[in-house]
């Protein structure tokens, strides 16, 4: 093949074509020789190496090596040292157009544009094996939101964050909020052990770890992922690491956190710390990379009121009265198979909820199918499966998938859905997506709705990283 290409070029090519063909051959052909002359050094990576753009004199090399070697016992730290503690700022944004195509009770009939995520990352290699990462999401919320728990039949006015801008003659401006997606510090002791503390994404499955819209193949999260049968974030500590045995990598995560709660990001309202454990195995073979993982989460949700009281002697005390308590255990399994341009991924998640205290067991609402009383313990399950193939043109990736969600909870119908679309990545930092989703409720229906018993919707999204 190289000879054929070369002959073609020799006979028909111009100088420009020759250069291009030669370059292409050098990239793709395993046995083609390189051009004999050393290539001139192109511009260095922007944040990679401050010395790369300054030539290769002995003094510069010595200076760089000295900087790399100084004040550090490990080369990892030395490399961080040479960067002189630079903050690494980056992020992603997505812009979506969504339209409901049918009459469905739980989706707005009005097509809309929205900025869904505007996330900013602040990362830093702190040196000596220490690394930090914070990610915040800027949002227009809470403006326009209805308070949670509002009677949907009689909603109060929307939350209005309008303020009067002193920098603009007091004209109205609507402020938004910031969601702290994660903020952690970690220390790598060994490939087998990194210890991380702070707020982190729960290391389960695929979707929750992929996390950002430029990475996620589709537009909408599968329902079983969006419903957070395992918490998406946790605050606490975790240890993780991996071991490479031949072409197989075995990884683990062990976490201890506040678990789930009304204010779990900054306060645990019980003494039961939640435990997360994950084990994954990844293997490279001629049929691609296959990763199989399993995650266990066990924790207790507790909500309390906090008040002060006086005892008989007139001393102040604080009372913590539990208003909601449930124990949960979730199991998640995931599979990802990547074979060249083909991807198959799926997750199965199961969550058991048990109310251990009858005095705070939630009341059930009466409906056509549920009598007055108290909620039973329940098990929710769900899964999704997604297949995608990236075509050689414009990095177009058709994808198709399906899901099933069985919450087995009051006022939530079991449902199935199928979806499919295109994920196009014209350049590495820009992803354009189009997705069609169709869902339907499963019998027995817990409550009837006006209109169709499922959603038909189309989503168009542009997401980009910066």
């Amino acid at each position: 093949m190289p000879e054929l290409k070369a002959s073609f070029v020799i006979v028909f090519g111009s100088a420009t074509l020759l250069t291009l063909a030669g370059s292409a051959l050098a990239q793709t052909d395993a046995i083609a020789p390189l051009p004999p002359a050393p290539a001139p050094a192109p511009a260095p990576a922007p944040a990679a190496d401050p010395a790369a753009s300054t030539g290769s004199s002995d003094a510069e090399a010595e200076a760089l090596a000295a900087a790399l070697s100084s004040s550090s016992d490990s080369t990892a730290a030395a490399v961080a040292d040479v960067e002189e503690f630079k903050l690494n700022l980056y992020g992603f944004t997505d812009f979506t157009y969504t339209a409901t195509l049918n009459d469905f009770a739980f989706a707005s009939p009005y097509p809309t544009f929205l900025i869904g995520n505007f996330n900013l990352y602040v990362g830093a290699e702190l040196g000596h094996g220490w690394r930090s990462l914070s990610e915040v999401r800027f949002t227009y919320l809470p403006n326009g939101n209805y308070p949670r728990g509002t009677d949907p039949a009689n909603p109060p006015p929307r939350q209005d964050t309008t303020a009067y801008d002193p920098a603009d003659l007091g004209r109205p401006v609507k402020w938004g909020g910031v969601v702290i997606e994660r903020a952690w510090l970690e220390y790598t002791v060994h490939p087998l052990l990194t210890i991380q503390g702070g707020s982190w994404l729960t290391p389960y499955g695929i979707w929750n770890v992929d996390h950002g819209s430029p990475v996620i193949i589709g537009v909408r999260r599968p329902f079983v992922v969006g419903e957070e049968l395992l918490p998406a974030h946790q605050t606490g500590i975790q240890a993780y690491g991996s071991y490479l045995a031949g072409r197989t990598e075995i990884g683990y995560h062990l976490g201890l956190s506040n678990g789930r709660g009304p204010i779990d990001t900054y306060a645990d309202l019980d003494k039961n710390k939640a435990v997360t454990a994950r084990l994954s195995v990844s293997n490279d073979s001629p049929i691609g990379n296959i990763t199989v993982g399993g995650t266990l989460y066990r924790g207790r949700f507790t909500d309390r009121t906090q008040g002060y009281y006086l005892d008989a002697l007139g001393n102040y005390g604080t009372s913590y009265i539990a208003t909601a308590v449930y124990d949960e255990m979730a199991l998640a399994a995931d599979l990802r198979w990547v074979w060249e341009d083909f991807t198959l991924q799926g997750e199965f998640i199961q969550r058991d909820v048990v109310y251990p205290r009858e005095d705070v067991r939630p009341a059930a609402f009466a409906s056509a199918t549920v009598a007055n009383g108290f909620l039973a313990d329940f098990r929710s399950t769900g899964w999704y499966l997604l297949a995608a193939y990236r075509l050689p043109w414009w990095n177009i990736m058709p994808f198709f998938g399906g899901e099933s969600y069985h919450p087995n909870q009051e006022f939530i119908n079991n449902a199935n859905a199928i979806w499919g679309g295109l994920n196009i990545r014209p350049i590495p930092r820009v992803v354009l997506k189009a997705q069609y989703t169709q869902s339907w409720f499963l019998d027995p229906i817990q409550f009837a709705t006006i209109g169709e018993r499922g959603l038909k919707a189309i989503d168009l999204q542009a997401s980009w990283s910066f």
Partner: protein
Amino acid sequence: MTSRREFLRLSASAAFTLGFPLGTASAQAQTLALVVAKNSPIQQLSQYELKKLYLGANINDPSGERIIAFNQAPNSPDRVAFEQRVLGMSSEEVSRYWIDRKIRGESGAPKAVGSVELLQRVVSKLEHSVAYVRADQVRPEVRIVAIDGSVPGDSGYRLYA
């Protein structure tokens, strides 16, 4: 119409550009070598370890220290060839890989050093680091380590550009 002289000139240019083994151009010139400091404890790596290392995995050397990988400049011919041969990715796929990895919150790409000479000087000072250069550009202050038990020149050596 192209004259015979012009045809020959273009032919020579094509052969040069495509890297035909003109004259005594040796197999060494077609080969990428993995280099480490003279005093490095690293004696060899498997191609799979090399792939994992350059994809961001933590790999330790025999002394227990984490191996630091250095890259050549983005889009340099050697780097493009290395990524194709070792990582099995095009430059664009590599870009996508690192963008996605950072959004997941994982560590970034290996540091790049623009000059092959400087790159080797840096590696020579860091006993737990590795880099790849053409075999005929290997400098005396570094040494070549085996990949899957083979070094450039061995019949089983597979790291060609």
